[in-house]
């Protein structure tokens, strides 16, 4: 019994060190979210929950080179607009709202960055494709936009990049993690790019031993696609660096007081 209690306490101390972030605000396509993913309201709520370590948002660049928060490829999927963010000007994007009864507006990245508290981190999932034109967005313009709009917060920002060719240029100024669905590819990228901080992978695609291997390389590992209490517990048992949870309230409570 004593051994069990000691083991339980030790395990709980490990869990308390795991960082917990809101995925796309308060969760992606979750009924508990109250606010639409990537809206200013959702990000604000996620950053204001007690013990929250921060939030992950999806970033797309407009035709004017401004960074906006939006997850999907096409605007008609979630808003009253049509087309791609990359093909619209800022004046057009600021008129758009999500198709919800709260009608949250699309928001610029520069409007949510100041919401960060000192100890919190903002993950920016850089969406690098313009699906309407079927081509990559201009990398130089993206880097310019990042430096202009969030460089002063770079110590609190981690870029999530799924384009291996952009990694080296991004690591000059920012913390960068590589996002992939294929763990074997992720491991190769870690070995080929010594300056990147780690990986972001789906919870279901990775085992505890893989996580241990990544941590042995002195890299960070963040898990996403964690939508239920069961999923949160399963992710915590693997002891990653952090999780991007779709149910932030329960993830924070499950971890317990970490501050």
């Amino acid at each position, binding site marked *: 019994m004593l051994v069990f209690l000691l083991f339980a306490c030790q395990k709980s101390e490990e869990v308390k060190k795991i960082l917990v972030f809101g995925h796309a605000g308060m969760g992606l396509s979750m009924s508990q979210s109250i606010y639409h993913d990537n809206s200013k309201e959702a990000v604000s*709520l996620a950053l204001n929950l007690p*013990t929250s370590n921060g939030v992950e948002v999806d970033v797309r660049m407009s035709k004017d080179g401004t960074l906006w928060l939006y997850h999907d490829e096409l605007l008609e999927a979630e808003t009253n607009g049509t087309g791609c963010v990359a093909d619209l000007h800022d004046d057009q994007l600021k008129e758009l709202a999500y198709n919800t009864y709260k009608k949250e507006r699309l928001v610029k990245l520069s409007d949510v960055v100041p919401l960060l508290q000192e100890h919190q981190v903002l993950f920016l999932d850089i969406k690098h494709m313009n699906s309407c034109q079927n081509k990559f967005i201009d990398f130089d313009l993206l880097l310019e936009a990042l430096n202009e709009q969030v460089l002063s917060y770079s110590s609190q920002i981690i870029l999530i990049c799924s384009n291996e060719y952009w990694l080296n240029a991004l690591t000059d100024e920012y913390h960068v993690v590589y996002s992939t669905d294929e763990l074997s590819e992720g491991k190769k990228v870690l070995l080929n790019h010594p300056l990147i901080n780690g990986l972001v992978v789906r919870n279901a695609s990775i085992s505890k031993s893989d996580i241990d291997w990544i941590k042995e390389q002195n890299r960070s590992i963040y898990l996403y696609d964690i939508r239920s209490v069961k999923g949160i517990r399963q992710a915590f048992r693997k002891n990653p660096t952090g999780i991007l949870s779709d149910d932030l309230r329960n993830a924070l*409570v499950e971890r317990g007081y970490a501050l």
Partner: protein
Amino acid sequence: MIRTFFVFLFLYFSFGITAQVKTGVGTWNIGLTYELQKFNQFSSLRFQFNSSKNNQVALSIGFSPQKARQTVFASSLMVDYSKRFPLKKLGLGPVVHVGMDSYVFGTRFNYTHASMGYRMSMGSPFQFFQELSFGPTLETFEYLSQAHRNLTWNYHFKLGLQYAIR
């Protein structure tokens, strides 16, 4: 959750076979309720007063087993009024709820609910009932000297079993 659902489903059909609704005037029922809603799940102790044959007022006091497993105590207090129209062995009618629940994690989170829906009941003196209602929920909490108020739509799905005290 699935296990609870099947237990209640079994009870539902068991009572359905022999049900004879005999809700008396001025009588009391005491029972247990399981409630599923947007943010939480609650198990409640329910006290129902039958003010007339088909008018019922109830008070439910509950806690969340899910939050308890997370070592957080979440309590709930809910009042409901329902009207019952007998349809053979079934009782079916509208129900109105008001109530609140809260838990403390870093700060106190309060949820205030109001909802309307239906209640279906069956059996006597043991009565099984099932409810579904919809309405607004206001989440309020204060953290780092900042007050937060978030209004959202919510659902309340309830299963209950109660006994008539004669």
